[in-house]
């Protein structure tokens, strides 16, 4: 019995790992029923895999049987792999026992589509209800919305889940049509939109009536596979931006494509996953969400791709040197945030500290500014006077000479003499 459970867990955790979302933040569900579990506002990562990704949730598929044949997915119908399916009891028992030992922050439940969308969604719903109603479980639950499931089922699931998500998979419709002809972006947009409208409606009602239950308190997210088809960074980020705006998504995840088949439409087996590109996309995502950048400032027709050797914030600064140097002691917060080498925390500290007197270089360093990078773009109380203005290419060369990129180490063509 326990041997079979171990086997199932191996198969179904392995199949679920390509879904990168693992956040457990944003839910403040309380343990009001004297049961077990609660939400943690900023989330907790309980461990990290050897590839450096956080493990916060027990991320599993209910089953990897699937009626679809999407080229980018390991669980596609035509793939010759071991199949397995958990029972509702299996999932409940695993979740409860892992949670009680503080292994996990909650459950991330997804599934291949068996029979049809409603049948699958109904099974997922059954697991979630068992946890919430019978086990008194108040921990985090991230549930996949199954595209094509009926509104009633999705609405009911939303009453028990903390977050719901549906994956866009391919950043553009043409990419999706190429690899998964049976699917379309519309299948994703419809339920995303439905859940979003429900969230807004529940929130409005809650303002008037206190007893209105929570509905998907941690919001929705989605994921795009990067590098399977030939989209530009611009196309990817514009899609992300429109989804952030139209559906108030909490997160868009970018998953570098890991070759899993010999399909000629995609990169061949053994190709390195585009980790650096993925990193740059996330940096851009952060700039949009926390640094007040508009997507067209970073990516536009003149620059459809992100620079590989420098991060998007630095590359924006180098393209827009007319805004610099910024005077640390007088500039607006908005502008300080745009200086390469200064993050949100440092920017906040600077704005508070400068009320007490002009800031000097040593203070900036102590506050945590990456000074060797920022020095090309700022002025503070004791900045040395400089006769000559450097060109963008020169500044870039200075910065690259001083920094060691973890990615470029093996890429340099320059011979090392000593």
């Amino acid at each position, binding site marked *: 019995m326990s041997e079979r459970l171990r086997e199932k867990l191996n198969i179904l955790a392995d199949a679920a790992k390509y879904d990168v979302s693992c956040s457990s933040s944003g839910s403040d569900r309380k*343990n009001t029923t004297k049961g077990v579990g*609660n939400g943690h506002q900023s989330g907790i990562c309980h461990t990290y895999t050897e590839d450096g990704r956080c493990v916060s949730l027990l991320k599993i598929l209910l089953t990897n049987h699937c009626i679809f044949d999407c080229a980018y997915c390991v669980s596609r119908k035509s793939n010759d792999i071991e199949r397995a399916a958990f029972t509702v009891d299996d999932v409940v028992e695993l979740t409860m*026992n892992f949670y009680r*030992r503080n292994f996990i922050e909650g459950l991330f439940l997804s599934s291949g589509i068996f029979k049809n969308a409603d049948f699958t969604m109904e099974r997922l719903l059954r697991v979630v209800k068992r946890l919430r109603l019978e086990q008194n479980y108040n921990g985090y639950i991230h549930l996949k919305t199954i595209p094509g499931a009926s509104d009633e089922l999705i609405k009911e699931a939303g009453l028990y889940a903390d977050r719901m998500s549906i994956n866009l998979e391919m950043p553009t419709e043409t990419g999706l049509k190429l690899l998964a002809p049976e699917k379309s972006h519309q299948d994703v947009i419809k339920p995303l939109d439905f859940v979003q409208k429900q969230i807004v409606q529940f929130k409005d009602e809650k303002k008037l009536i206190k007893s209105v239950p929570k509905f998907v308190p941690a919001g929705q997210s989605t994921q795009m596979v990067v590098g399977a088809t030939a989209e530009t960074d611009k196309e990817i980020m514009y899609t992300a931006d429109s989804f952030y705006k139209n559906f108030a998504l909490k997160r868009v995840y970018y998953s570098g494509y890991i070759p899993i088949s010999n399909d000629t439409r995609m990169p061949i087996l053994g190709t390195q996953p585009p980790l650096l590109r993925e990193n740059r996309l996330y940096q851009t995502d952060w700039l949009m969400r926390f640094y007040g950048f508009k997507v067209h400032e970073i990516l536009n027709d003149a620059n459809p791709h992100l620079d590989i050797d420098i991060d998007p914030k630095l590359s924006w600064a180098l393209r827009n040197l007319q805004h610099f140097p910024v005077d640390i002691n007088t500039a607006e917060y908005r502008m300080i945030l745009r200086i390469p080498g200064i993050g949100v925390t440092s920017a906040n500290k600077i704005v508070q500290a400068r*009320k007490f007197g002009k800031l000097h270089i040593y203070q900036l360093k102590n506050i945590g500014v990456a000074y060797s990078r920022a020095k090309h773009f700022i002025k503070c109380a004791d900045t040395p006077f400089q006769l000559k203005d450097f060109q963008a290419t020169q500044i870039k060369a200075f910065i690259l000479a001083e920094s060691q990129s973890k990615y470029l180490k093996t890429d340099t063509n320059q011979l090392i003499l000593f």
Partner: protein
Amino acid sequence: MIYIFDGSLEGLLTAVFEWFERKPGKINLRTIKTHQPDAFTETFSVHTNRTKADRVWSGLQKKLGKEWMRKFYCAYLSELSEVFNALFHFVCYVFLHPAGAEKNYGNEHVLTVSKTARSVEREKHRMEAFIRFQHTADGIFYCGINPDFNVLPLIVNHFKNRYTDQKWIIYDLKRHYGLFYDLSTVEEITVEINSQVLKNPTANQLDEKEELYANLWKDYFKSTNIESRKNTKLHVQHVPKRYWKYLTEKKID
């Protein structure tokens, strides 16, 4: 001049009181444990006094908001001698300046307090993440820990609110005290038994299903890893090696 105190929070606050009463000019604060007498510097022993400490504490509450009171307390829990000194100067600095002075990150003591508080909060968060309970044969969920800072007081509420329907013990092996939750309240406990058992309970002290779930968790940890993205540097950065001893998934069988 050197002020010597006993290392307690009350002692630290009393030291502030004594300084304001005497105004001896520039001083350094040391604990009895770390003080090395020398021939030339004058010393003054602070006698911890509850009333004086309370006066300083309530004065501080009037000056600082909730956020900074917590930072102050967290920095104190670091138990570092140089931080005690920084805390002393921080309190004096706050009292001597108009409201809002604590936000002057240009001041070295403010920065030390805020940075240390951050490290302590980080350690607290790590404990919330890395504690791995073992289900013992008598039905208690147990974990022995060895945190860098004295974070037990900070994690009580988290575990109490989360695991309301199970008995649990979290024991600090370094500082020799622990927390025990008996389904209604959390108590501080000390145990006088063989520390080897506290570190690693033997199989017959554990619930019969404990091994199964430990193995399932190890399996899960392996299956969820993507081999072609292997990044050991990042892995170790997130889970520093000194924490591996707690982690079920990192134990070699």
